[in-house]
Each structure stands twice: as C-alpha cells, then as structure tokens.
C-alpha cells in the first residue's frame, strides 16, 4: 500500500498528452481510476502489464508507462493470456471497449472467464463503437440510436455481469464513471483478486452515443449514471426494477486459477517425465 501523494506523471507517457479522446469522453475518467488504484496498491510500473485491443478505449495502453501492448481488435485477452502464462508475476490488466470485448472479442472473453486466468479485464462500456462512427454494439440495448440503427437497435443487450458470471469469472463487478472513487476501489479489489476479474465500468461517448441519443453533454451523461444506478440489492429496486445495479457480484477465492492449474497439470508432469 502506498501513502505517498498520487502523481499522475509517474504512470503516463506525458509526451502523448493531451490525449486524443473527445472532450468529456468517459474513458479518461476510467484511466484516472485505474492509475489511482495502481498507486493505492503501491505497484511499480514494471510490475504491471496493460494490454488492449482496438477502439477509442483501447488507445489507453499507449498513454500508460507500463509494459504495454496495443493489439488487434478483439484480441487483447489472448495476448494477455500469453503474457500472463509467460510471466505470472506480472499484474496483467486489460482495459477495452464494449465492442472489443463483447462483439469481435466475445469468444475470447467467455473463455478467459472459463479458464479463470489471473487477469483484470476492465470493460469501458460506452454502449457504442466510438472510434468507427457510432455503430451499435452488443451492449447498446434495445431502442438505442446508432449509425447502423437509425430507427433504434432491435436487439437486446448482454448483461455483462450475468455473462461473466455464467462463463465462470471469479470476480465480477460493475460501477460507473460518475462513481469515480468507487471505480478506483473496485479496480483495486479486482487487481488484488487472484483469478479472472471483470469490472464493467459504464463510460460515456458524448460524440457518438450522446449526439445520436440526445443524451446531452458529458456532465448530463454522467448525471444519468447517478440517477439510474443503485448499489446492488438496494430497496429502490423494488420500486424501479429498470435501475442498473452496481457492486461486486462475485468474489470467489476458491476456484483454481489457470496459471496454477497449468503449472500443476501440465508443466510439472512434463518435467517429471523428463
């Protein structure tokens, strides 16, 4: 744990700032929460690996002064899996978009959950493809306007928490960029957890989602998360079941972690055979 003052310059590649995200893009708030969590844990930059895919969200890896990889669209988790197996001492963190993680990368996502590999996945969910012009994603939800759904999206969205739970992730949480301190503390717990951790952070894209859905400017979009989310199990849910629950839904330390399993069930056996 660290009791020194948080200094953002320790963790970023300042030559790339100001970053490319639009004014009020929630992804920057997620980045701040992640850096504060890393600071709270007292991790050194070399102890951390940040691996992302492709998307506005995935640009995050380029801004951070850790062992970083900016990989292919949807392929952050397989790359991170390789990094973690090669060096299990690294804290491997995968921040990526809702499109990157649940559309093109959805298959990798469920299998990382199933294996329970010790990686922290942070889904920066702005419910749209920001980078490529506002196409809808599997997280947009019915009725949302997108460049590929001018009359509103006809399909139901994933509930990422239920998806991660069902696929076997051993730590599953949800928070929002409005709740920035909660996001920081949740990421901290997720990094500390040994096993596959999924933290869905409801982020916001004022440029694509905001404009198409008349959701207002960045402060109004952030305010929406204040008004439409509640801590899990809140009494308010009885009156309004449409509210989105925040909290840590799964925190299971009993399940066998994949690097440990691979060591015991494969490497040790190979070594014994000689």
């Amino acid at each position, binding site marked *: 744990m660290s009791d020194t003052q948080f200094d953002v310059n320790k963790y970023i590649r300042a030559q790339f700032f100001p970053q490319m995200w639009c004014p009020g893009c929630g992804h920057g708030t997620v980045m*701040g929460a992640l850096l504060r969590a890393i600071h709270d844990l007292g991790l050194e930059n070399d102890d951390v690996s940040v691996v992302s895919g492709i998307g506005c969200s995935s640009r995050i890896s380029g801004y951070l002064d850790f062992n970083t990889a900016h990989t292919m669209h949807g392929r952050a988790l397989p790359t991170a899996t390789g990094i973690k197996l090669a060096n299990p001492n690294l804290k491997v963190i995968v921040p990526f978009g809702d499109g990157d993680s649940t559309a093109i990368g959805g298959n990798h996502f469920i299998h990382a959950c199933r294996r329970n590999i010790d990686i922290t996945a942070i889904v920066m969910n702005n419910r749209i493809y920001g980078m490529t012009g506002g196409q809808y994603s599997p997280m947009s939800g019915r009725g949302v306007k997108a460049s590929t759904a001018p009359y509103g999206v006809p399909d139901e969205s994933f509930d990422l928490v239920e998806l991660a739970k069902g696929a076997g992730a051993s730590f599953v949480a949800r928070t929002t960029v409005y709740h920035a301190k909660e996001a920081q503390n949740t990421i901290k717990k997720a990094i500390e957890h040994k096993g596959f951790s999924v933290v869905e952070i409801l982020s916001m894209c004022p440029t694509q989602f905001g404009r198409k859905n008349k959701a207002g400017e960045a402060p109004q979009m952030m305010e929406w998360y204040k008004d439409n989310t509640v801590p899990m199990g809140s009494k308010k849910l009885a009156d309004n079941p449409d509210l989105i629950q925040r909290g840590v839904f799964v925190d299971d330390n009993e399940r066998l972690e994949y690097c440990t399993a691979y060591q015991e069930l494969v490497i040790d056996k190979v070594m014994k055979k000689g």
Partner: protein
Amino acid sequence: MAKGKSVTHVINRDWCKGCGICVHFCPKQVLELDSDEKAVAARPEDCIGCKLCELRCPDLAIQILIEEGE
C-alpha cells in the same frame, strides 16, 4: 476550507478540454470555464477539498493540493 488548511487548484490548461464535468459537479461552485473554455478556480476560498473534480476529470487536468496549516 477547514481551519488551518489551504488548498491549491493546479489546472493544466494544455490538457483541459473544457468538458465542464468538474464545474457541473463541484458541490461548492468553486470552478468555472473561462473565455478560453478552460477550467479555473473562480472561488477557491469556498473549496472543501473533496477532490471530486480531480477524480472525475477525464483529462487528468486538475489536481487539488491540500496543505495542512500550523
């Protein structure tokens, strides 16, 4: 600000994009956007040092330094 404490708002004008998040959510209306659409501490004496502006700023452009007095 609480007795014996002083607070400094360090705002990086090169990084601030004028999104207005810090201004909108400041519980004490300390912050404003100036004519260049950059955040400034217009009423620093009202600041309670809650750091909500710093935590939510997407551009890592605002830092609250709190110094304990004598």
